[in-house]
């Protein structure tokens, strides 16, 4: 039996990870999962490394059929998760038996869902990352009939038919009540906008139609640049808040070109970027002024929660001998691959 997952309905799905961190120094966008938190949680829930390849679904329904037993976790946007038509919970490890199909449909309260699979996928990497790069034409295609190679299967120790759910991990889900509050710290060119910078925080902004993984456009009354003159091309961070044409606010996301010449009035915090990964055209956003200290503390607190969750999952999986196919420290090997060892096979 081949260790693959066959794609039945691809929707709009990519195989990605936390991003190509060696890319920006070469003039390539970092790319990777737009909702980094949801991606980290999905991988944590199935015992994977945080940067393991996983699926990112945008807006459309997805269905697949693994040819071996797999453990999956679906996070991100609220959706309907079914395994052979039985509803299963999101933000939770879910067993899918060989030959069963699972579907993630009706994405709402958010735009992107993440599907991590125990052991992750064997996919090509560029500069250490599998994240698609549309400019280079790099990435793993997810089409109807595609088969994604798994690095290992779940050992036959799990018997969910016997009753109660195997795992109970309490995961805090993001609050998607509108208006969504997005924290912004001061950018290097805040002063260029004078007093009008306040408009970013007093007005609410509506997500525009022409938004994608490169950037989000917002309709509203934007701050106005008070200075003129060309800014020499320079690196712009993910999360940069700009007003390029003077008519709308632009927030750059992980697909952004790494250099540009527009003044940067603010930078969205990491938790803020995860919220922006989930907004849809028409959604209302309230930007909130924050500080680097506050944004750092918030990011650290959330990451500590994910680390604690990953720890609990590891403990539970070890107790079930779930890692027995590849026991030991190689789970965290630098290559990110799981090398099966035959000695502990059940």
């Amino acid at each position, binding site marked *: 039996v081949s260790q693959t997952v066959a794609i039945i309905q691809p929707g709009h799905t990519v195989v990605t990870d936390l991003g190509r961190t060696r890319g*920006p120094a070469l003039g390539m966008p970092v790319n990777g999962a737009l909702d980094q938190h949801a991606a980290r949680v999905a991988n944590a829930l199935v015992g994977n490394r945080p940067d393991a390849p996983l699926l990112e679904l945008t807006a459309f329904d997805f269905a697949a059929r693994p040819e071996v037993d797999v453990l999956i976790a679906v996070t991100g946007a609220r959706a309907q998760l079914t395994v052979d038509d039985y509803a299963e919970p999101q933000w939770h490890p879910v067993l899918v038996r060989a030959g069963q199909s699972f579907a993630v449909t009706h994405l709402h309260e958010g735009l992107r869902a993440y599907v991590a699979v125990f052991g992750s996928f064997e996919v090509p990497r560029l500069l250490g990352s599998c994240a698609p790069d549309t400019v280079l034409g790099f990435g793993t295609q997810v089409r109807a009939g595609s088969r994604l190679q798994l690095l290992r299967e779940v050992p036959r120790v799990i018997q969910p038919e016997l009753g109660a759910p195997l795992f109970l991990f309490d995961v805090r889900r993001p609050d998607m009540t509108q208006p969504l509050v997005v924290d912004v710290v001061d950018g290097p060119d805040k002063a260029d906008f004078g007093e009008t910078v306040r408009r970013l925080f007093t007005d609410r902004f509506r997500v525009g139609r022409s938004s994608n993984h490169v950037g989000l456009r917002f309709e509203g009354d934007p701050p106005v640049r008070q200075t003129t003159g060309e800014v020499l091309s320079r690196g712009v*961070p*993910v999360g940069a808040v700009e007003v390029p044409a003077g008519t709308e606010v632009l927030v750059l996301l992980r697909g952004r070109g790494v250099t540009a010449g527009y003044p940067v009035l603010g930078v969205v915090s990491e938790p803020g970027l995860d919220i922006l990964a989930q907004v849809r055209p028409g959604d209302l956003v309230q930007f909130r002024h924050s500080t680097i200290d506050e944004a750092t503390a918030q990011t650290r607190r959330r990451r500590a929660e994910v680390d604690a969750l990953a720890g609990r999952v590891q403990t539970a999986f070890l107790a079930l001998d779930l890692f027995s196919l590849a026991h030991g420290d190689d789970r965290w090997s630098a290559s990110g691959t799981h090398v099966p060892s035959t000695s502990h096979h059940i």
Partner: protein
Amino acid sequence: VARSADRELDWATVHALAAWLTDQPGAVAFSGLIPTYDSLLVEFDPVAATMREVRSVVARGLAELWEHRSRQSVGRHFDVPVVYGGEDGPDLGFVAGLEGWTEEALIAAHTGKTYVIRCYGSPAASPMMDAPDLPVPVPRLKSPRATVPEGVVSLAGRQAVIAPASAPGGWQVIGRTPLVLLNKNAEPLVPYRPGDTLRFRRIGSEEFEARRGEPLEPNS
């Protein structure tokens, strides 16, 4: 941002600092290091390092670089054949007109200069260079083209660039090289790096067709 009176020094400093930071043991904390003309953008994971730690490592890097400032690495040189004008350089006439020059004069200026690759830029490892001395800075297109092919040679502001990959483009396109700059199956992805030098050489359409798809390689 480096702000000395010396533009060359600023440029050399931000690139040397980026290289130095890449070699540090804690470099995994950096999620993006982007040196350009006079600035270095350092993106880092706020869980792996604090702002204070990053500031202190940057200060240490600058101090070390200052101590070893005499050490200069020797760059390699590239010759880039280019077909100017026509379909391959649709904006040649516009830019020449703007400068009050003939197309021939603009080509002569563009091929008459040895360029230093200043930094990598968008879309993918593009070699960013200072444009030849032009009377008037070149404006960007009012509405960017949805796609320009790989290999196009363009100008904007006081900058010159070659596009390694096909992408949307707002720069004025004056020509195109048949050579391939980017190989996504190789490491490094592109053969040049900041500090290397480059010259453009005018070719005709026959040589363009003959050399189409050849990889760009440094002069030996």
